[in-house]
């Protein structure tokens, strides 16, 4: 019994492969110290144990921001060992203002920079696909090439990989699209540079250029498309595109004015329209070459470690380079004296937003984009290019995922964690103690690691879900769909896989179970929505809603009502569709909004659909009435508080209180909020974040400052927050230090005195 890959876990609470111990929090917050002093001997042990980083869940009683919200016991979970993969390449598309990001596990994500930097689409990774280059071509086509020797095109509408073409040159190290966008150049391991023609539905091999001695690690086209520069190991070649022969071979010094045994790897080249070739290499140099004569013009030594990436702006008056120490340098073309016409390249700004190697940079018209091994995507708008100096010009650092990786079974208090290649099922601990606000309660029963489910095959898991009753687990990869039935006997758990899944269910973008766990809703990447009936140990395909008209704007999100009548699906440009599940037809469509949906949920009794968008707008739409609710209209008329709209991270989960229909609970990465629809809305002058005011304040003051948005920033960074029952919350946190502790080694920085 049980799947071959599932391992049952005893009540130990330890994870199977123990990651390096997470560091203790730098400074214990005030309420922890308080409770360590005030409670009994058992108490400090649990507080300290948390401090030392043991993976235990702890109950903690906390009160939401103001009186009247009620008291909750909070399960504070830190045993979700989520480590994102490092960023390997970024590619910026000017026409649509979108950024494609490829990570080391093969995932490619597409961010919409105009929609508040929201990740709208992603293509799941693959173990054997080691992407090394990413580029956009004409007509919004996205190509990637990697060490498996294949060039892949991504279909941004169908959200799958259109095709993969083998270049027959060994592992591919670099790829560049021509300035016209109709040709693709690929640099391979065997030293050959191959030219491909981009046809409307595929790419076609055109010819090879002269083969070089060592692998071609970087490529750049001249803006006119007549020449290319290729960086290799210890030299840079300039090719003439028409003849395919190497015009110049420029030897790169291994060390700046010195001798070194290590080969100099030219990590990046850029070709400017005046014939200058800029190269960055592993010795820490940025060099300017003249391609007409093949000679070195200028050499800058900017780092003690490799300079790994370069990106030039379209106007060619500035470029950005990223180093292995995590520093990003901005170079600008500046006049020599204030009224001379002669210009020179000057290193103007250093930015230190990364701790590890910056493997890739991009230059948009107004911002510098960088990403690297420390998994952050940093977008730094340039102040001189930004027209309106408001909050839009602030630094954006995207660290946490913009979608939910955790699902929860409320009845059995289970959490399902989704990783790239496995799923983990944990049961929350329990406590019998009680306390007052701010106490940390000792656990009588530890959190239990019930299941470690490995996926078969090299593909990453796209999405996963556990049913509310806890008896079904479903997850999907690109080629397969898996459904498991769980049986609980006393303290044991057994797993049984449902075999013979229909082929149309694979490559699901979103999976959702109905509240009573009898129906399974699957949104496939072809746009269709499938309803599957589950009964006992078997399933039956009930219905498939075909894709509606409209282009795919973002990944599909699903929401189902608790009575099982209504199903909402987002993701297309037509708006959010609401389907009647009992009658199996489309009920209505919420009017389209120009920002993608980040979270959706349907309220239990009123059947109001609450939608959160990436620009931090929240709408409430009444499904039975087919119109926005009065409260929503009031909010829209007044507008949200300016601090609410300036939040960086999108709302990823919305839930409701079963007994209080006026409350909406939502959270993003750095706060969670309970919206009380019965209280007045804040205007721009009131304090948005007002934690529980001291009791000695007069009632008048308290009434004046009380408003509908009760925000708490106690638990952060939050990956997931939900209401388990009327008096219990669960908060899954992921401290940044725990992620950093598991990253690859950074470059050594020598500091005086250490």
């Amino acid at each position, binding site marked *: 019994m049980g799947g071959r890959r599932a391992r049952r876990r005893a009540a130990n609470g330890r994870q199977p492969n123990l990651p390096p111990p997470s560091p203790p929090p730098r400074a214990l917050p005030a309420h922890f110290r308080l409770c360590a002093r005030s409670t009994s001997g058992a108490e400090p042990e649990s507080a300290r144990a948390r401090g030392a980083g043991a993976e235990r869940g702890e109950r903690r009683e906390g009160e939401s921001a103001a009186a009247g919200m009620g008291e909750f016991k909070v399960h504070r979970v830190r045993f979700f060992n989520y480590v994102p993969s490092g960023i390997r390449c970024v590619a910026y598309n000017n026409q649509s203002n979108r950024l494609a990001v490829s990570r080391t596990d093969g995932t490619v994500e597409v961010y919409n920079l105009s929609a508040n930097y929201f990740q709208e689409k992603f293509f799941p990774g693959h173990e054997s696909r080691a992407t090394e280059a990413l580029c956009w071509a004409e007509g919004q086509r996205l190509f990637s090439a990697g060490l498996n*020797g294949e060039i892949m095109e991504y279909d941004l509408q169908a959200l799958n990989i259109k095709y993969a073409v083998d270049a027959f040159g060994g592992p591919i190290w670099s790829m560049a699209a021509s300035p016209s966008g109709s040709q693709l150049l690929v640099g391979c391991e065997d030293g050959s540079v191959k030219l491909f023609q981009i046809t409307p539905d595929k790419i076609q091999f055109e010819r090879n250029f002269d083969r070089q001695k060592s692998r071609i690690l970087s490529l750049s086209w001249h803006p006119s498309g007549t020449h290319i520069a290729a960086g290799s190991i210890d030299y840079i070649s300039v090719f003439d595109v028409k*003849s395919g022969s190497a015009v110049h071979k420029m030897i790169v010094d291994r060390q700046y004015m010195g001798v070194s045994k290590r080969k100099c790897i030219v990590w990046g080249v850029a070709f400017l329209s005046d014939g200058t070739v800029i190269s960055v290499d592993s010795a820490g140099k940025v060099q300017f070459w003249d391609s007409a004569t093949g000679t070195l013009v200028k050499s800058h030594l900017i780092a003690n470690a490799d300079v790994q990436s370069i990106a030039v702006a379209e106007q060619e008056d500035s470029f950005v380079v990223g180093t292995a120490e995590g520093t990003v340098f901005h170079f600008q073309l500046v006049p020599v004296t204030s009224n001379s016409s002669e210009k020179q390249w000057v290193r103007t700004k250093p930015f230190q937003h990364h701790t590890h190697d910056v493997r890739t940079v991009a230059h948009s018209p107004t911002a510098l984009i960088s990403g690297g091994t420390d998994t952050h995507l940093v977008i730094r708008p340039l102040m001189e290019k930004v027209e309106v100096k408001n909050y839009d010009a602030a630094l954006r650092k995207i660290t946490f995922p913009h979608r939910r990786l955790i699902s929860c079974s409320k009845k059995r208090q289970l959490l399902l964690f989704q990783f790239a290649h496995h799923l983990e099922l944990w049961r929350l601990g329990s406590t019998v103690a009680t306390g007052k606000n701010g106490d940390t309660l000792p656990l009588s029963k530890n959190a239990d690691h019930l299941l470690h489910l490995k996926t078969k095959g090299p593909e990453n898991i796209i999405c996963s879900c556990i049913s509310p009753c806890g008896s079904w687990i479903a997850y999907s990869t690109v080629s397969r769909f898996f459904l498991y039935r769980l049986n609980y006997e006393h303290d044991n758990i057994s797993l049984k896989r449902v075999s013979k899944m229909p082929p149309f269910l694979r490559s699901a973008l979103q999976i959702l179970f109905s509240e009573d766990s009898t129906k399974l809703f699957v949104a496939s990447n072809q746009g269709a929505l499938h309803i599957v009936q589950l009964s006992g140990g078997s399933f039956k395909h009930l219905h498939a809603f075909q894709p509606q008209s409209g282009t795919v704007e973002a990944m599909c999100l699903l929401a189902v009502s608790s009575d099982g009548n209504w199903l909402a699906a987002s993701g297309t440009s037509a708006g959010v569709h609401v389907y009647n599940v009992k009658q199996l037809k489309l009920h209505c469509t919420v009017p389209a909004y120009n920002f993608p949906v980040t979270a959706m949920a349907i309220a239990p009794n009123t059947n109001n659909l609450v939608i959160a968008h990436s620009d931090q707008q929240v709408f409430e739409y009444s499904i039975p009435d087919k119109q926005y609710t009065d409260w929503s209209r009031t909010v829209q008329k007044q507008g949200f508080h300016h601090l609410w709209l300036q939040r960086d991270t999108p709302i990823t989960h919305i839930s409701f209180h079963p007994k209080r229909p006026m409350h909406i609970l939502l959270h993003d990465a750095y706060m969670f909020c309970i919206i009380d629809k019965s209280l007045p809305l804040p205007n721009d002058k009131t304090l948005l974040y007002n934690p529980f005011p001291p009791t000695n304040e007069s009632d008048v003051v308290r009434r004046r400052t009380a408003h509908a948005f009760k925000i708490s920033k106690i638990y952060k960074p939050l990956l997931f927050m939900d209401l388990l029952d009327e008096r219990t919350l669960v908060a899954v946190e992921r401290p940044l230090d725990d992620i950093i502790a598991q990253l690859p080694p950074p470059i050594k920085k020598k500091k005086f005195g250490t």
Partner: protein
Amino acid sequence: MVQLRPRASRAPASAEAMVDEGQPASEEEEAEHGLLLGQPSSGAAAEPLEEDEEGDDEFDDEAPEELTFASAQAEAREEERRVRETVTAPSRPACPSLYTILEKLTTASQTNVKKSPGKVKEGNDSKKVKVQKAQSVSQNKSYLAVRLKDQDLRDSRQQAAQAFIHNSLYGPGTNRTTVNKFLSLANKRLPVKKAAVQFLNNAWGIQKKQNAKRFKRRWMVRKMKTKK
């Protein structure tokens, strides 16, 4: 002024390298490719080839003909032009380039695998390709392109490439440090020095701790028994 001879093109070597996976059986095919791809842009590099052949033939009999440079060059150019015309014009449709052959081989092998009955595991498609014969379409059927087991070759190349990257970024000679030391730098420079970020090593002595726990449990049980 010295006119430097342009470098001899290395393209013929690339044709052989691509032929690792599929080997065209006929020699004339190879020779045609060599000639096709190896055409240098000017006639100057072609000269030595032609002259050498002529020289070998006439070496035994008598002293070689005295030719002026210009006439020899003109002859060589004409020869080259003739050869190019005869080779390129008719043979292009009949002799597809190496790239298209390789493409046909890969698609043929993929369709063969798909046709195989039963549920083939998707992830292991190419691994199951042992020897796939693909008859390439050619007007005179002069060659047979055979694809041998190549997934291992591809994997080994990919691994070699990843080893190269790993060595160049994290190998010897790079100045790397551990994450613990990196994050603890700040702690060491404070006016009141603090401990390192990962001061506790919870993975130390796991076996000892487990033994101790087991022993304690057994001792308790024994103690309870003797007390009774």
